[in-house]
């Protein structure tokens, strides 16, 4: 695993050849900032559907292992 990661990072080093001082970053290729939908409440998943894939649930909530009891969570 370590060798694979090293070789990939070594390969990525080639980007340092490029002078990008004055280049803007691109994080998204389409302008999306104006595409907010109307602020109207929409139905969400029912509690039953939201919990159907939970490994453990109780009382309509996801159940997780104890987080206190000696173990800092």
């Amino acid at each position: 695993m370590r060798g694979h990661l090293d070789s990939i990072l070594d390969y990525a080093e080639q980007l340092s050849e490029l002078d990008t001082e004055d280049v803007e970053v691109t994080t998204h290729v389409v302008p999306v900032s104006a595409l907010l939908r109307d602020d109207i409440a929409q139905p969400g998943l029912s509690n039953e559907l939201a919990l159907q894939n939970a490994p453990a649930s109780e009382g309509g909530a996801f159940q997780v292992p104890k987080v206190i009891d000696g173990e800092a969570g």
Partner: protein
Amino acid sequence: MTDLVAPLGSLRQLRAALDSGETSSVELVNRALARAEASQATFQIFVSLRPEAARLEAEAADTRRARGQVLSPLDGIPVALKDNLLHKGDLATCASQILAGFKAPYNGTAVQRLLDAGAVVVGRTNMDEFGMGSSNENSSLFPTRNPWDAQRIPGGSSGGSAAAVSAGIVPVALGSDTGGSIRQPAAFTGVVGLKPTYGRVSRYGLVAFASSLDQIGPFAHTAEDCALVLEIIAGHDPHDSTSLPDTEESATHFSERLGGSVEGLVVGLPREYFVEEGIDAEVLSKVKDAVSVLEKAGALVREVSLPHTRYAIATYYLLATAEASANLARFDGVRYGHRSKQAHGLLEMYKQTRSEGFGKEVKRRIMLGTYVLSAGYYDAYYRKASKVRTLLCQDFEDAFDQCDVILTPTAAEVAFKLGEKTDSALSMYLSDVFTVSANLAGIPGISLPCGLAQGMPVGLQILARPLDEGRLLNVADAFQRLTNWHEQHPELKLGAGGEA
């Protein structure tokens, strides 16, 4: 060696057979299921089938047809979905153990639109785990085999969907393309695969790999069939803020606008892609033949340059792994998916769950992505790659000032043999060299068959400006009216290790 039940054929052929009453949706769905089951032992294309539900839906489609209420060109047509697309009530595992048993609580938008059009989902296709791979060997279940040669991979990550169409099981399948995951397997299996413009198809209900790169698209035998599917699944969706607004310019009647000539079309050949070094000589010669076909039909061919091409792979793997590391943080054993039974306490549960649930390649990419986003390395890797992405976008803008479409090989070679590249993650990554740039720039790309080399299909890639799928499909359709490579299909053979 056993000959399987006959392949189904193209969407156009099946529509004609349904319209003439020669066949029924029930018969088509039964044939698709029979062929899927018969090929499974050797080719392992599907991760799950839904025979009962599909037969019921096919009956409903036949009833609609009898009443003259056909919903769309896809009504009653058997289709397959990649295992990362949510289909309510059905499993959606991304071929990962961490999602074993996960049932989709809702329909993804592209899936909903197929269902509204009357399409019948027969099953879910195998993939590289979470879309991370180029060969299907990273599926946690089994590797899908190439219908043309069971010793070879079908490509990835949508290898199962490509193989399902190539093997004549379904005429249409959906996949997703983050760095070539539709186009490369389409090339390797001799079918047409379309990656639309980023934002053209809603990603709602597609399990995210790299959100700024992912896009859903169709596989089919022809550009015309892909056009029909695209116009059904495309369009704005309020559930995905990156889906593009519906405008005049994005009007989606792609299939009605096919049939044009390529007379006067300016075809750009990027000199960085047509290099002798690193491309199989036979593949290169088939792609050059394809260029000549269009040139003889009146297209003007000129050389263009995409000068930053050599940096595309590094840029892609830095950005895609960074986004993946964030997206896959949600798999923690709390709300869905696998939860380790070994662990005591919450933190240990997270760690054990992820250690047990993710495969090697997924872990590698999460680690790489976390590293390139970490405080000391963010500028050198993630930020740098985001800037080089701008240069790659600029390359395409400049090239499209000089041409209408860009033609390249889809892959540098034909489908490789299983195990050939699994020793080196880097050499697997390098096989995506011709496809990743389109995702980074968000432009549409299509791969279509343009010949055979060593008995295996060769893919021609066509790239166009953002939202120019109309032209892309027209050129692909024109090429298919001039050639018959898309009518050549593999003869499926069964036997140990795929030997004839």
